[in-house]
């Protein structure tokens, strides 16, 4: 026995409704924050109220990240409405010191000086990257002292490895967004740019933050 043709459309609609329900249930089961690009205000440079923003996935040992760092800082000054969020993306397979450097910046962030420490790490990269392996950690302590941080608290934070989780959570945020190299910048979290050229950055800043 066959069903009358008049039920054909009803079955189609039923399938679509089941599809929609499956998606809604599936979405409700996704752990909250799994794909979230966390704002992390302590790692944000520029105008926090700006609707448009750039996210930079970076590694403190990456020479191209060092190259673009002053370019981005300069553009941030030129465009007062600009907003840049830093995210860690240490290529730990080849950059053995990058994870600890990122942790150090996070520890400085606990004392409200992430951006200052971040700048210092890039400014003094020749120092801490060239010092004997294992000794660079002392450079990180010195930088904390130079910035006037509570050295004991900084040391306790860095030695405990408590910030490793946040560093790799940042990296996972990048991996979920097809980031596979550094530096990678995301425009408003949805468009990837991998340039290192100042003129290209200027075009992006003009597009996003022009008054």
């Amino acid at each position: 026995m066959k069903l009358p043709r008049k039920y054909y459309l009803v079955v189609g609609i039923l399938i679509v409704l089941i599809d929609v329900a499956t998606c809604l249930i599936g979405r409700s089961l996704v752990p909250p924050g799994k794909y979230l690009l966390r704002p992390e205000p302590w790692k944000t440079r520029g105008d926090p109220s700006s609707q448009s923003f750039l996210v930079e996935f970076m590694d403190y040992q990456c020479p191209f990240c060092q190259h673009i760092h002053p370019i981005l800082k300069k553009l941030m000054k030129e465009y007062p409405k600009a907003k840049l969020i830093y995210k860690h993306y240490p290529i730990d397979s080849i950059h053995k010191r990058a994870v600890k450097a990122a942790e150090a910046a996070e520890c400085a962030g606990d004392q409200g000086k992430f951006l200052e420490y971040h700048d210092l790490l890039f400014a003094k990269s020749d120092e801490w990257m060239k010092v004997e392996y294992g000794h660079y950690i002392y450079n990180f302590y010195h930088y904390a002292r130079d910035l006037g941080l509570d050295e004991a608290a900084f040391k306790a934070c860095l030695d405990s490895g408590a910030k490793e989780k946040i560093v790799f959570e940042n990296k996972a945020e990048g991996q979920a967004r097809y980031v596979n190299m550094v530096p990678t910048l995301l425009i408003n979290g949805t468009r990837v740019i991998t340039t290192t050229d100042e003129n290209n950055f200027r075009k992006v800043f003009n597009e996003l933050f022009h008054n």
Partner: protein
Amino acid sequence: MNYFITKVKVIWGLWKRPILFLLRVSIGALFVFSGYTKLMQPKEIFEISINMYQLIPASLAPFVASVLPWIEFVFGSFFLLGYNIEMSSIPLVCLAVLFQIVLGQSLLRQLGLDDCGCYGHTNVHLTIYQSFCLDTALVLLITLLFSEDHHALALDNLFETKTKHG
């Protein structure tokens, strides 16, 4: 030679229906999986994937990222269940051809993408070339299924057949 051709025809006659059934279910499931994984993640992640191909203006990416996964998911499920196979074949073939164009141009322009972004944030990672080959196979297989009059274990079989006079 004739004997061989006859033998192949006999074997094909025997196995045709189960093979076509498996093909239909696999293709349907592939589209359902592809659409579902994209729908389970925020739209912005698929937008990144679309923008990586540098083919459409970035302002269009949010719309495409909203609509395309639903087309894959809904018509994939129609195909999987055997509901209106002829009608659901058309958008699926169009999608596969569209993907071929997008992937093909990224190969020609040497955009250097190492993940096609076809299956969202899952462990399934296809290179552009692998994905291009898969889409070529999909176009051929969906066309083959489209040309068939009868499909095993399809929802369509539960309904009275359409008469020429409606």
